[in-house]
Structure formats: structure tokens, C-alpha cells
């Protein structure tokens, strides 16, 4: 163990791999010393575990209706009570982690690369390319996010895939902005000039030498953005435009509890707490990650 630590913390790494691992190790140590970030990480890990094991740990079927058991208050048999169709709310929340994760992962996977590409192209080439790309970015930034997502869903029709597309369409501009700002600094660095003198093409410079340097900022931005994505997705679900019944999407579950809010509060209350907890996890972890990765 101590040799491993010595290997990782070595002042003179013998290989590129060792240097990289050493850097990861130091970042992990500084993240570990931040209790809030660690709390966030634990929440995210719990989310992943629950999503993976949902069918095993959920006490009931999340979709099967049981009309004898409608709107039961929280009890030993149903910890979070049951909804209007007699479904166990705890089981639905546990299964709902999968939908939340799918939405977040799909949005991030589509938005990150697109934003990164547009931002680095604009920042690297400058001039008319920059003006054109940033003008487009500004147009999308000028729209309030949820309203634009609503308009897109209106065209595409409600559903989980379309909600993902709509959120992705509205979420990329900040990433492009971040990547552009980083690139404008990087492109004047000496090592870029050196690579260029060696005859590297623009494409190679961007992909191999600019993009990796932009990644930390984009990753931080992504983590901080995940809470926003979750909230937007829940908002669409609440308005009936996201995941459709009987899928146990948290926003839609809150909407279904709306009409019983004054008498059967648990139908809407618990899914909302789940959203809060997960969004909080991403926010805490993102804050910590920013301190570690983003010195400036």
C-alpha cells in the first residue's frame, strides 16, 4: 500500500502513465478532503447502485395496478404509501432512478461533444467562423431553456426520447461558450506553435492538443449542469410532455399526485424529495470537482 502511494506521489514519474495516475491520485485526495463533495459522490454512487439493482430491491412491481390498495398512507407494508392506482410509491421511485439516469446520460453524451466541437472550432479559427458559430450560439442562449424545450416537444410529440432531444437542443450553448473561452487562451500557447511547426494539421491540433485541455472545464460544467438537466426533465414530465405513463418518471409522478395533494400528500411529496436528493448530489459533487479540476 505504501509502495503504491509512493509510486503515485513520486516527484519524478518514470512514465507518462505514472504521471497521469499520480495526478488523478492527487485530485482524488483533494476531493476526499471536501466533505460536501464526498456527500455528493456518495449520493451519485447510491443512485447508480439503485438503478442497477432496482428490480431486486424494489418491494413491489412498479407498474402493476392494485385498485384495492389505492392511496394508502405510508405504512410498514408501503413505506411511502401507494398512488391512485394502488402502486407502491417506493418501488416506483426506485425504478424511476433508471429513467433519470437514462435522460441525464443521453443528454450529456449528445451535448458535450457538440458543444466542445463548436466551441473549439470557433475559438481556434476565430474570424468569420467564430462570428457565425457564436451568433448561432447566442440565438439558442437567448431562448429561455424550458420554453424552447417546450416548443421542440410540441413539434416532436411527448415522450422520453423527444424530451431528451429537446433538452439537448437547448443545453449545448454554455458548453460551446466554455470550450471557446478555453481555446482562445490555448491557441496562443507555445506548445501549439511547436506542434504546428512540426506540420500537424488543424484538425489534429484541435482534436489531439486543444480538446484535451478543454475537457476539465467542460466536465465541471457538465456535472454542474446535470442537476439542471434533471430539473428540466422533471418539469417536462410534470407538464405531461416527458416520459409517458405508466413509466415511473418522478416529474410525472408528482403531476399525478397533484389532484390529491391536500388529502394524500405522500403521492406528490416523495418523488419530489427523490429529485431534490439527486439534484443536490450532482450540485455538491460538481462544486467539489470545480475546486479540484478548475484552478481558475
Amino acid at each position, binding site marked *: 500500500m505504501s509502495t503504491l502511494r509512493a509510486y503515485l506521489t513520486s516527484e519524478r514519474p518514470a512514465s507518462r502513465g505514472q504521471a497521469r495516475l499520480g495526478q488523478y491520485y492527487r485530485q482524488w485526495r483533494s476531493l476526499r478532503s471536501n466533505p460536501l463533495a464526498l456527500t455528493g459522490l456518495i449520493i451519485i454512487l447510491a443512485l447508480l447502485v439503485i438503478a442497477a439493482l432496482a428490480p431486486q430491491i424494489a418491494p413491489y412491481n412498479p407498474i402493476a395496478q392494485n385498485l384495492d390498495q389505492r392511496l394508502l398512507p405510508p405504512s410498514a407494508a408501503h413505506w411511502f404509501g401507494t398512488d391512485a392506482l394502488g402502486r407502491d410509491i417506493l418501488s416506483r421511485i426506485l425504478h424511476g432512478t433508471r429513467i433519470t439516469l437514462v435522460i441525464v446520460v443521453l443528454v450529456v453524451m449528445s451535448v458535450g461533444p457538440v458543444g466542445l466541437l463548436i466551441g473549439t472550432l470557433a475559438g481556434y479559427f476565430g474570424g468569420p467562423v467564430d462570428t457565425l458559430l457564436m451568433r448561432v450560439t447566442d440565438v439558442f442562449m*437567448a431562448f429561455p431553456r424550458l420554453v424552447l424545450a417546450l416548443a421542440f416537444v*410540441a413539434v416532436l410529440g411527448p415522450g422520453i426520447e423527444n424530451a431528451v432531444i429537446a433538452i439537448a437542443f437547448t443545453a449545448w450553448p454554455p458548453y460551446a461558450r466554455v470550450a471557446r473561452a478555453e481555446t482562445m487562451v490555448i491557441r496562443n500557447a507555445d506548445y501549439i506553435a511547436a506542434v504546428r511547426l512540426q506540420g500537424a494539421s488543424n484538425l489534429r491540433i484541435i482534436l489531439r492538443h486543444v480538446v484535451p485541455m478543454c475537457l476539465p472545464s467542460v466536465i465541471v460544467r457538465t456535472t454542474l449542469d446535470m442537476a439542471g438537466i434533471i430539473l428540466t426533465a422533471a418539469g417536462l414530465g410534470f407538464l405531461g410532455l416527458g416520459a409517458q405513463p405508466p413509466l415511473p418518471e418522478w416529474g410525472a409522478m*408528482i403531476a399525478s399526485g397533484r389532484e390529491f395533494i391536500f388529502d394524500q400528500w405522500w403521492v406528490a411529496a416523495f418523488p419530489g424529495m427523490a429529485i431534490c436528493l439527486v*439534484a443536490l448530489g450532482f450540485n455538491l459533487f460538481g462544486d467539489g470537482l470545480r475546486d479540484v479540476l478548475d484552478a481558475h
Partner: protein
Amino acid sequence: MATMTRFGRSTGALAREVMTILVTILGLLVVTFLIARVMPVDPVLAVVGDNARPDVYEKARLDMGLDKPLVIQFWLYISKVFQGDFGKSVLTSNLVIDDIRRVFPATLELATLGTLIGITLGIPLGVLAATKQGRWPDHIARFVGLFGYSIPIFWLGLMGLLLFYAKLGWVGGPGRIDVAYQDFVTPMTGILLLDCALQGEWDAFWNAASHLVLPSSVLGLFSTAYISRMTRSFMITELQQHYVITARVKGLSEMRVVWGHALRNAIVPLLTVIALSYANLLEGSVLTETVFAWPGLGRYITNSLLQSDMNAVLGGTIVVGTVFVGINLLSDVLARTFDPRAR
């Protein structure tokens, strides 16, 4: 002479700004136009109804200019939009612009009050957090910030209704005013509180206020989270500046150093933050209005959306987008006016 050139430069920058904004609004129109053209709903059927005869259908199609090339259609579209003509709402069978004019004051009322709450709570909280870093005001600010960024606004609204309306009875329920008072006031400004006050209907005024307090507090929390976070970071920067040391050396009280000197310099960037927060609340009102059955623009857009009333949705989207852009322009102008460095 010097003032002349400075003035000239600043109007040049302003002109550039206005150009940028015109381009942005044009882009906004391109997006909404394309959305309207690719939507699966047939716009002609929406007007003439499903059972129209073929000749009626064809005439309506020609009237709407749908046989012309896309570029011409776009030209017709933007020339209409610039005259404030968004077409007719299928749902209410009014002109969309009239509908929007009717519902917009309700949203304005909500977002304005929410922002005011955000300013009055957020700025002092942010200043305290910056001056007492790592102590309890800082922790409260951090907590409020995390809270505001992690809670679904519609859920908070529902829980607020459950607690303060149903259980405690401290506030009015959904809607802008009790049905009993509805006919007491004739709409003048559309801002209900103002209308009640102008007509001296104080019972109605207090009733409307009791309905307004919860939704605007919900929006206010989000505004507070954002404003306090930004105030804190601006103040931390300002408090490290040399002029703060100078002020302290001259023996000014800590109160005057912080609130008189440092905060004064943080006001300019804060104006931008407040403008952004205001614009965000216009958006946040989409969900809040749904929860509180608040007859504003957000609910108008979502209701129209659920009924596939595209004219209304796109009209509403354009209005919200334009207001958004306008607020950003306003904050730039304010920053330019108050901060000589930005000129």
C-alpha cells in the same frame, strides 16, 4: 472634446449591441418558423377543421401562403410578426397577440415581486456571506444556494400550497383572487394589485395579495439563491481591492467600508445578475403558474401546447424570447451608464 469622443464611442458600442440583438431576434424567428413548418400538425386543418370540403381547405391553404416557396413564407411570417400579428389562437379563437396582452401582466406581476424578494434577501445575504466567510451567514447562503439549485420549483409550489394554504390557512389558494372578489375590480393595468389600489377596493387588494404571496415567494427563493451567490463572489473580489484597504486605513467604520464602498462597486455587475434573474423568473413562471393556476403567459403557453395550438405556443415563445433579449440589452445599457470602465 474628450467627452464628445467618449460619447461617440459609447453610442457606437450601443449601435453594435442593437445590431447583435436584431440578429438574435431574427435567429429566434428562424427557429420558431422552422418549428412551425416541421410540426406534424397540419396548420390548415387546425383552422378549417377536420371535416372541411377540399375546396375550402385549398382556399385556406392559399390564403395562408403555404403554396409559396419557404423563403417567401418566411418573409410573410416575419413581416406579420413585426406587426404583432401571430395569427389566431385555435383554442380561444382570439388573436394571439390579444391573448398575450391579456395574460402577460399576471406573469409580470409575479416575476417582478419574485425578483424584488430576491434582491431584498439575496444582496444582504451575499454581503454577509462574503464578510463572514466560513461562519454561519456563509453557511446559510451556501445552503440557500444549494437548495435553490436543487429543488424542482413546481414541487416546492405544491408543498407550499399543502402547508401554508391547506394546513395553516395563512395564504390564499390557487388563482389570482377569490371568486367572490372577481367582479369587484375592472381590469385597467392588468396588474391586479395596482388595479385594486387604484379603485380603492382594499378588501380585494388584500385578498389578491394573499394569493400572490406564495407563488412569488417560491420564485423569490430561486432569485435569492442566484443573487446571493453572485453577490458573495463579487463582494469577495471587491473586498480584496486596494481602495478597500485605503478606506480602512483612513479609519472608516467597517459598516461604511463594506456597504458604502465595496457594495457600491459591486452594484454594476449585480445589475446584470438581477436582469438575468428576472429573465429566468419569466421562464420559471411556466411551471409555477401551472401549479398555482395563475392566469399568466406561462400557463397560456403550456395550455396551448397541450391542445396543439401552435400559433399561441410560438407567439408566446417569441414574446418570452424577445423580453429575454430586451432585458439583457437593458442590463448592458445600465452597466454602460453606471460604470465608466465599461464605456
